């Protein structure tokens, strides 16, 4: 007979579902607090606020929570501990949320010391989660990379401005020697960076075969050596692993046939057991986060239902005034006082707008006069400019249409050395990548020259202003 009896939903399950969902969310996000903090935030308890501010900061910051964002102190202990959050971080979170279009005013009105507003922060977090695949995006950012990578374009880096540098409070004047020191340090650091990059390029591109036959000392440990000998290659001597010609030596070693050789990280893994253990740990944490993300996706419905209750507990907020408020007719007496003040403010605002418009027009007229008025040369110049701009636009459009079919290089690419003539489906020849980089370099150089020219003109103008002043330029480098 087997009519299966329907199992009654266990009420205990229902009670557990929410904390488990939130716990899964916590494990996915960087620096996320425990479910208990979320619960306290719903009731706007003060201890929840700092933890949630920190969470929002880490989520909104384009750097992953692993890398040391050294301008701000990171959480050391458990996130629940109410260690103080910097005012600058709070302001930054507010400004980023505002720029992304977060509608609730109450968040902006929270105090900068980060001590209150748990509920509002919870709502902000939910808003971010609802807008897009936030956990997945964060996981992509902090993904452990095993290959040797090279960035091809900078759109991600350009599009996401990081947290602001801490403002240096200048008490009065700054000693110019300090500025010169910092300037020199910057220049030297830049040179060191360039030298390091060149070193890396030189070492990855060196021809290794001479070294193999010439050198006799092998300083690899036995396990790495055995593995590589099995693969029929011979390790080089002396230089630490990341600097050797890994790609050539390790041909045929990789389990993934399409890649064919090991990357620097993978070779280090074989060579250095301690490094291998650390890499393994990082991979395990990433795996745990990925699993948590999956679990979150299964359980998130419970979370959203709970968020509805959180929203219900919030006091009703007036719709955000994006335009000037419609002021009702001023009433008499005390009730009409604030309304009258509002009206006065409105008038003042209108007056200011009028003033601004006049100032803009005056400026524009002055500029046109400075440029040369409405004479025929001016018109001709203007026409020439318009033609040039139209040409540039047409060229851009044409170039874009040409390139539409090809895969545009974006983001970091794994370096793979291959004998094959045909690149893989998603691959990109090194030549194409270098072309793209060269084009960008040319563009930046042109911009640099233009800016230098502008600076020179400005300097010349300043020199002209004070005839008695002698300018001593620094020695040419």
């Amino acid at each position, binding site marked *: 007979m087997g009519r299966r009896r329907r199992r009654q939903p266990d009420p205990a399950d229902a009670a557990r579902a929410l904390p488990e969902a939130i716990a899964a969310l916590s494990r996915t996000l960087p620096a996320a607090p425990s479910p208990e903090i979320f619960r306290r935030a719903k009731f706007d308890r003060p201890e929840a606020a700092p933890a949630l501010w920190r969470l929002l900061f880490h989520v909104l910051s384009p750097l992953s929570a692993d890398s040391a964002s050294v301008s701000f102190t990171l959480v050391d202990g458990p996130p629940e501990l109410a260690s103080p959050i910097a005012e600058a971080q709070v302001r930054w979170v507010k400004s980023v949320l505002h720029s992304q279009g977060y509608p609730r005013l109450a968040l902006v009105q929270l105090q900068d010391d980060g001590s209150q507003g748990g509920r509002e922060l919870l709502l902000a977090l939910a808003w971010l989660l609802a807008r897009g695949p936030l956990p997945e995006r964060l996981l992509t950012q902090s993904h452990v990379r095993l290959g040797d990578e090279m960035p091809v374009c900078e759109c991600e880096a350009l599009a996401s401005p990081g947290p602001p540098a801490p403002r240096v409070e200048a008490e009065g004047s700054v*000693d110019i020697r300090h500025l010169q020191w910092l300037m*020199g340090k910057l220049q030297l650091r830049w040179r060191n960076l360039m*030298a390091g990059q060149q070193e890396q390029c030189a070492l990855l591109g060196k021809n290794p075969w001479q070294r193999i036959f010439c050198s006799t000392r092998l300083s690899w440990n036995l396990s790495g050596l055995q593995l590589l000998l099995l693969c029929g290659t011979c390790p080089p001597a002396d230089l630490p692993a990341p600097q050797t010609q890994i790609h050539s030596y390790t041909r045929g070693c990789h389990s993934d046939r399409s890649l064919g050789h090991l990357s620097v990280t993978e070779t280090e893994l074989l060579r250095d057991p301690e490094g291998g253990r650390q890499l393994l740990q990082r991979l395990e944490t990433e795996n745990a986060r990925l699993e948590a993300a999956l679990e979150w996706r299964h359980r998130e419905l419970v979370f959203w239902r709970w968020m509805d209750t959180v929203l219900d507990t919030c006091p009703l907020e007036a719709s955000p005034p994006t335009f000037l408020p419609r002021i009702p007719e001023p009433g008499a007496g005390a009730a009409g006082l604030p309304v009258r003040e509002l009206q006065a403010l409105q008038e003042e605002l209108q007056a200011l707008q009028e003033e601004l418009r006049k100032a803009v027009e005056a400026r524009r007229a002055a500029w046109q006069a400075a440029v040369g008025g409405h004479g025929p040369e001016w018109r001709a110049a203007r026409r020439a400019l318009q033609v040039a701009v139209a040409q540039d636009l047409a060229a851009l459009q044409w170039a874009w249409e040409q390139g539409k079919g090809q895969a545009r290089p974006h983001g970091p690419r794994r370096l793979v050395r291959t004998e094959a003539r045909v690149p893989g489906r998603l691959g990109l020849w090194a030549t194409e990548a270098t072309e793209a980089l060269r084009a960008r370099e040319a563009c930046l150089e042109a911009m640099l020259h233009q800016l230098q020219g502008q600076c020179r003109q400005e300097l010349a103008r300043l020199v002209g202003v004070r005839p008695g002043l002698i300018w001593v330029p620094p020695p040419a480098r």
Partner: protein
Amino acid sequence: MSIVTVQLGQCGNQIGFEVFDALFNDSHCPGGLCSKRENEAYQASCKERFFSEEENGVPVARAVLVDMERKVISQTLSKAARSGRWKYGQHSCFCQKQGSGNNWAYGYSVHGPRHKESIMNLIQKEVEKCDSLSGFFIIMSMAGGTGSGLGAFVTQNLQDQYSSALKMNHIIWPYGTGEVIVQNYNSILTLSHLYRSSDALLVHENDAVHKICAKLMNIKQISFCDINQVLAHQLGSVFQPTYSREGSFHYRRNPLGDLMENLVPHPEFKMLGVRNIPQMSENSLAYSTFTWAGLLKHLRQMLISNAKMEEGIDWQVRPPLSGLPPLGKMSVNKETHFNTSIANLVILRGKDVHSADVGAFKDPALYTSWLEPVHAFNVWKTQRAFRKYEKSAALVSNSQSLVKPLDMIVGKAWNMFASRAYLHQYTKFGIEEEDFLDSFTLLEQVIASYCNL
């Protein structure tokens, strides 16, 4: 990354040999108080920096030897080859037969242009052997003719040809009572020219090193060889590998670059001094033990009181109370004066190095007002002991310590210049009085900048 050394003149070549010898012997020192693997990494790092590999496996120093006389170079080459453990490249040297007669102008205006191509070719060959070039280390003396004049010329050419590579000039400051009559002229011309084309001037004073040999090493008859060995020891303790970061066990790739970035980014302040502790003959080593606290305390007082060795330190000199400027602005006539630093780099090598506390060096009172200790002070460490010293510390500092010697030299040179003594020997070869005046101006500016810290 590799450093190419250019050894100029008698002084430069003799010191250069001792430096390479010290570096090599230290890196092949058995034990070193660390694991075998660590030792190998240290050796590999040192080797990559200073030596290149040749077919039969004997490391070849990355050096170019230049002198206007044959004698010293052939001595140097044979000493290196005799050791059997490392050597100089056969074709890495350039010498002539005539010498420079202690005349800066002759070295700079005659030898320089005449032999420029050959010398730069040699350097180019050495640079090509490097996988990547960190910079140049140019060893020269200030008082003679070849080292000083030709050295200034070569540095200028390196600046033109390798503008992106760093250059550190190691300068030997002559004895106050030196034998060369025109040493002060040579010195000021060298210093002023180097200030314009070099990135850092690392100075060793003969007088100071002489005292170290006499008092600390107990050497009775001090020869140049002894002095050079002390110098080499100090340089070795600065340039041997150190960890790249706190908590890392990988060795720093670009010590020259990091050193310069920490100490000499400001174009007016390029003069560096080195102090090392403990400094003693190796026989006495077995009977001494040190603690990091003791070593660092002495080193700090050496810095503050401008002492060059750990004996006879003036412990009365104290840093000024915070907030107040040092007692009276510095005047070069004051005997005991607090030595203000712009930036310091402490390098610790040996046992329990991670427990060493360098907090005393982070005292803002030690530094000038416009640079905070977090920017001004750095510490590099490695567990691997240097030579046989279980614990050793070196201090490279950009401070006022060279102001007084510089002022003395400028003063003496000016007196000679005012009476036009020996000037014709310089004008004969194209160094005019304007060049002298330019040099004086530049050095007075440097002295003033350092005094006004």
